[in-house]
C-alpha cells in the first residue's frame, strides 16, 4: 500500500469542509442537501480507510449502513423540499423561516 492512510484522511477532511462550506453559504435547499451528501461521503471515506488500515470489516459495514440511511434521508428530504415548494413556491431556505424566533 503505497498511498499512506493520512492522504485518504486529508482528502476526506477536505471534502467534509467543502460540505460544511456549502451548508453554511448556499441558500438553495437542494444544494444544501447535496452538501450534506458530500459530508456523509467524506465520513464514509474515513471509515473505509481505517477499515483498510486495521483490516477490520466492521468499518465497511458502517459504510453500508450510512449509505442506507443516506438513501432514506434523501427520499424523505426531497419529498419535504417538494412539499415546501408546493406550499411556498420557493426552495430558498432563507424564505422558509416559519420557526424563526
Amino acid at each position, binding site marked *: *500500500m503505497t*498511498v499512506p*492512510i*493520512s*492522504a*485518504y*484522511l*486529508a*482528502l476526506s*477532511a*477536505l*471534502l467534509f*469542509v*467543502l460540505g*460544511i*462550506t*456549502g451548508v*453554511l*453559504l*448556499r*441558500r*438553495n435547499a*437542494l*444544494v444544501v*442537501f*447535496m452538501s450534506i*451528501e*458530500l459530508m456523509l461521503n467524506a465520513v*464514509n*471515506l474515513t471509515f*473505509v480507510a481505517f*477499515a*483498510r*488500515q486495521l*483490516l477490520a*470489516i466492521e468499518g*465497511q*459495514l458502517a*459504510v*453500508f*449502513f450510512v*449509505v*442506507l440511511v*443516506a*438513501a*432514506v*434521508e*434523501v*427520499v*424523505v428530504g*426531497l*419529498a419535504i423540499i*417538494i*412539499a415546501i*415548494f*408546493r406550499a411556498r*413556491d*420557493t426552495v*430558498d431556505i432563507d*424564505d422558509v423561516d416559519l420557526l424563526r424566533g
Partner: protein
Amino acid sequence: MAVELIVFIFAAIASVAGGVGVIGSRLPVRNALSLLLVLGSLAVTYLLLAAQFVAVLQVIVYAGAIVVLFLFVIMLLHKQLGKMSPDRLRWQGPAGLVLAAAFLTLILLTIRLGAAAPTAPAPAEFGTAESVGRALFTAFVLPFEVASMILLVGIIAAVVIGRPAAQPAAAVGRSAATPVGASRR
C-alpha cells in the same frame, strides 16, 4: 506500485474538483453532476482501499439512485430554482468561510500528529461481497433488520409527505397510490 499513487492522485483531484462544483456552481443540474463526479471518484478510492463491495454499493446506490433522484427533483422544479430572494447573509458568509478554514486546519493537524501504523497488505478476501455479507448476516443481523425497517419507514414517509394536501377524505385512498411527486394538484 506507483500506479496506486497515480490513480489516487487523479481520484483525489477529481473528487475535490467535484466538491467545489457542488458548492460553487449556480446551476442545480451542474451541482448534481458535480456530486456524481465526487461519488464516482470516491468509488475509485474505495477500490484502492480494498473495499470492492462498498465501491459497487457506492456506484449503484449513490450514483445510480440518489443522484438520479436529485436530477428528477431538479427537473420537476427547474423553472423556479434560479429565483432567489436577495442575499440576507451579511457578515455570516465570511465568518462561515473563516470557521470552515479553521476546522480544516484543525483536522489536518490532527491527522498529521496521529502516528499512522504501517499497513499490512490486505488478504485477498478482504472487502469482497462474501466477507461483507458474512459479517452482515452473522454479527450484524439485528442492525440489518432495523435497517430494513428504516427503509420501510422512509417509503411510507415519502408517500405521505408527497401526497397532495387538502383533499377530501374519500380521495385519500386513491391519491396515496400515486407516485411521489407525480401529481402537482
